[in-house]
């Protein structure tokens, strides 16, 4: 039985696509059969982050409109045999995604024996974001330690609790996780960035993981290699820890404390 995971945030540019790509790769690397879907219709980007942009022939909307089969639209990852990408359409038609259409595609994927369906949500709370979360069993809410992102996350948590299939049928709640990204322990220590505890307290939810701000994320997107594949990257390792926790493992947090400065650095600045 496939589990549908939505990666969402409300606010734009906080790291949803970066997270979707790394979570999908992380799950696949642990042997799961995974498909990751770009719901950002009109602004396709997941393909670039996954490094498969030149292999997109058919997209999500083509499948919904019956212009190709689901199998034709799935792009197989070059690194991992059990990982597939479904690209967003570049159409400007806002109504290209429908609830029935999305449900049909998700059911098709379940029949293909995928274990995890990762949905990369667009920003905002419009149709695309709504449809990305509607069928979810689990939600990863990506949040940056910054006022507007935290407020928008709370808004999204409210929608997850009311505007999803599970909420409507009353069957069960959508499992909610916070993923704190672009975290800078030095700035937290200086008191000019909210801490993990601050964000947890405001949102009333524990974090699944904390991904530090890191230059390796940009390097990864430049190359079309999800940062989780960069073994030396702290951000990549933090994503791998988060995936482990998603699968129920207990893993201690890493990279959340400021580097201890030497005596001389503290004395003369650095």
């Amino acid at each position, binding site marked *: 039985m496939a589990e549908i995971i939505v990666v969402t945030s409300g606010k734009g540019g906080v790291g949803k696509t970066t997270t979707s790509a790394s979570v999908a790769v992380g799950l696949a690397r642990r042997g799961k059969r995974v498909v990751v879907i770009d719901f950002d219709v009109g602004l396709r980007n997941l393909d670039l982050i996954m490094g498969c942009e030149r292999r997109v022939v058919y997209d999500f909307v083509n499948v919904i409109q019956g212009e190709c089969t689901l199998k034709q639209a799935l792009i197989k990852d070059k690194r991992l045999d059990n990982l597939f990408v479904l690209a967003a359409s570049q159409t400007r038609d806002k109504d290209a995604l429908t609830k029935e259409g999305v449900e049909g595609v998700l059911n098709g994927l379940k029949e293909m024996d995928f274990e995890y369906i990762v949905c990369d949500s667009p920003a905002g709370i419009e149709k695309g974001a709504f449809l990305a979360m509607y069928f979810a069993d689990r939600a990863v809410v990506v949040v940056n330690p910054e*006022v507007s992102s935290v407020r928008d996350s709370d808004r999204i948590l409210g929608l997850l609790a*009311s505007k999803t299939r599970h909420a409507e049928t009353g069957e069960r709640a959508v499992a909610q996780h916070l993923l704190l990204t672009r975290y800078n322990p030095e700035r937290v220590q200086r008191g000019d960035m909210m801490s993990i505890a601050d964000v947890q307290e405001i949102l009333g939810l524990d974090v699944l993981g904390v991904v530090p701000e890191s230059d390796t994320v940009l390097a990864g997107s430049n190359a079309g290699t999800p940062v989780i594949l960069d073994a030396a990257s702290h951000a990549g390792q933090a994503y791998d820890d988060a995936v482990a926790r998603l699968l129920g493992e207990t893993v201690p947090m890493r990279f959340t404390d400021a580097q201890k400065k030497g005596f001389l650095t503290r004395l003369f600045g*650095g």
Partner: protein
Amino acid sequence: MGIFDFLKPRAPNSASLAKERLRIIVAQERAQRGAPDYLPTLRRELLEVLRKYVNVDPEAIQVKLSQEGGHELLELSVALPDKPGR
């Protein structure tokens, strides 16, 4: 950061300011979740009426809808300014 840091006045901690502001606005928005759509308009119109008599700040008006023993309760509280407005 350097040796004479302690001589500088301590800057206000902006992270705690962010946390405090968020705590308040998030609580307020949670309370409004699922509330009827007319509440913001009601609040705006009340503010206009009140301002004919006293100079109140938008922050001073709290409109809250809650459930109490099977009834819906609309609570309205207005903090009046210290000195009469006009």
